[in-house]
Every structure is written in C-alpha cells, then in structure tokens.
C-alpha cells in the first residue's frame, strides 16, 4: 500500500516537470536576450556634456565671453561642437537665452524637442529625448547676466 502511494505521488521525473523547465528556460533566455540587445542609454550624459561645453565656452572666469554678443559669433567652432551632427541629424537640441545688460537667444537642432523635453521631464517616455536644463548667473561689463540653457539628446546609434 505504501509502495502504491509512493508510485502515484512521488514521481519526480514526469513530463510536466520537463515542460515547466522548458518554459522557465525559454523565459530566462528571452529576457536575457532582450536585456542585452537593448541600447545602453547615454542620452542624459550627452545632453550634460553639451551643456558643460557651452557653459565653458560662454563663461571665462565668471565673465561672459564678449564675442558671444558679436554678429559673427561662431557658436559651434567656439564651443567645439559638431554643427552637422547637432543641426542636421535631428537627434539634438540646444536652446540658449541670455538676458540682462545684453541679450541673445540661440536655438539649434530639432526644435520639436522644446515641447518633448517638457513631456519627458513629467512622464516616463522612452522614445522622447532626455534633456538637461541649467540656469546660470554671470556678469558682463560689471552687470548681472542670466543664462538659461536647455539641451536635449535622443541619439541612439548609426547603423553601418
């Protein structure tokens, strides 16, 4: 009687067990493959790098660079940025507003990011760009100047 009970309840090597293992294995393989196939997201880093580069080129020793306000100010050469990538790729956005004793507004890249950056800051939206906003107070000719910057990146990779 005991042996019959063991035969019914103690069968460890049943077909159902193999099926469960197969399902678990398939799930783990699929999950791992999806995880490692996804992009490593460095968009926040990129937008911060753009912000830091622009701040470094605009401000020297706490003073705004005077060449910023000149008509022939070459933003990309001065700030060491690739014009073609930022303006034409559609993956980047830079908005710069200088106000105070002198003012200047510059916008480069994908203008649609202006609203997209707002959405991305309020929602968890993976397809939207990741943006950095910075407000800096500096001086120009002894007067206070406020600089507001918004930079965004939605750059993934370039297919071969």
């Amino acid at each position: 009687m005991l042996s019959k009970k063991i035969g019914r309840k103690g069968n460890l090597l049943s077909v159902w067990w193999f099926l469960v293992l197969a399902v678990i294995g398939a799930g783990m393989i699929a999950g791992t493959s999806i995880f490692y196939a996804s992009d490593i997201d460095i968009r926040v880093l990129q937008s911060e790098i753009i912000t830091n580069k622009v701040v470094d080129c605009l401000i020297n020793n706490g003073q705004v660079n005077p060449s910023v306000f000149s008509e022939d100010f070459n933003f990309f050469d001065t700030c060491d940025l690739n014009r073609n990538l930022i303006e034409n790729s559609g993956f980047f956005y830079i908005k710069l507003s200088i106000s105070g004793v002198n003012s200047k507004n510059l916008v480069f890249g994908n203008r649609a990011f202006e609203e997209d950056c707002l959405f991305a800051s309020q929602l968890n939206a993976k397809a939207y760009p990741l943006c950095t906003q910075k407000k800096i107070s500096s001086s120009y000719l002894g007067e206070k100047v406020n600089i507001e910057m918004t930079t965004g990146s939605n750059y993934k990779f370039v297919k071969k």
Partner: protein
Amino acid sequence: MKNFIKNKKGDEIISKQLIFLILNLIFLLAIMFFIVRASTGAAVLEETSAKTVAILIDSMKPGTEANFSLTKLYDFAEKNRYSGQVISIDSNTNTIHIQVLGSGGYNFQFLSSSKSFSYYVDKSQENQEVLVLKKV
C-alpha cells in the same frame, strides 16, 4: 548493513531524486552559461567601448590627454580570428567604429569637432593596446 539498504522502497526514491537533482543542475548550468556568453558577447563589448570613447572625446578639456585600454577588444578579436582594424575614427563623419568580429561592428558619433583632437593606438607594450587621445 547491506541488507538494510538493498531492496527497500527508499532505494528507488533516492535514485529518482538524484536524477532529478542532476537534471536540475544541468539545466541551471546551461542557463548560467548562456547568460555569461550573452553578457560578454561582441555586441555588448563593441557598444560599451564605442560609447565610452565618444564620451571621453567629448568630455576632455583642451590640452589634456587620455588613455583608453583596448586590450580586451584586441584579445576578443584575436580569439575570434579577426585580424582587421578594431577601432577607427572617421573625422569626416565624426564616427567611431569598433569591430571585433568579421562582420558587423558598432558605430557611434561624437559631439566634438574632429579637428580638436588627435589619436593613435599605442602597441609599444607587450600584450597591451592603448588608445591615446589628445585634445588640442
């Protein structure tokens, strides 16, 4: 003592449990092997290296020099019998290309102007390849 173990119902249960445990172990080892292979594969290595170099180029201040070890990339390429160029930087398109297998590779563009830096691969030390970046 031998009669105590032989011809008992526990004899059958122990062998089934043993087989069950061994099969479970084989399954777990197979899954772990797959996960390790996936995490150290070419695709992940190429992507992380390309993005790291791009971030390095963009973060460097003028007048600075940075070294990035390519030994892992070259070792991987050698293990997979790839003798082509592992890393190349196209100054026209500002693109870093890293490849460790015969096909594929990973491209990534950096933000800085290509005129602002120079680079070369230092292979002077044995079994060590280093990418040297100099920001002008």
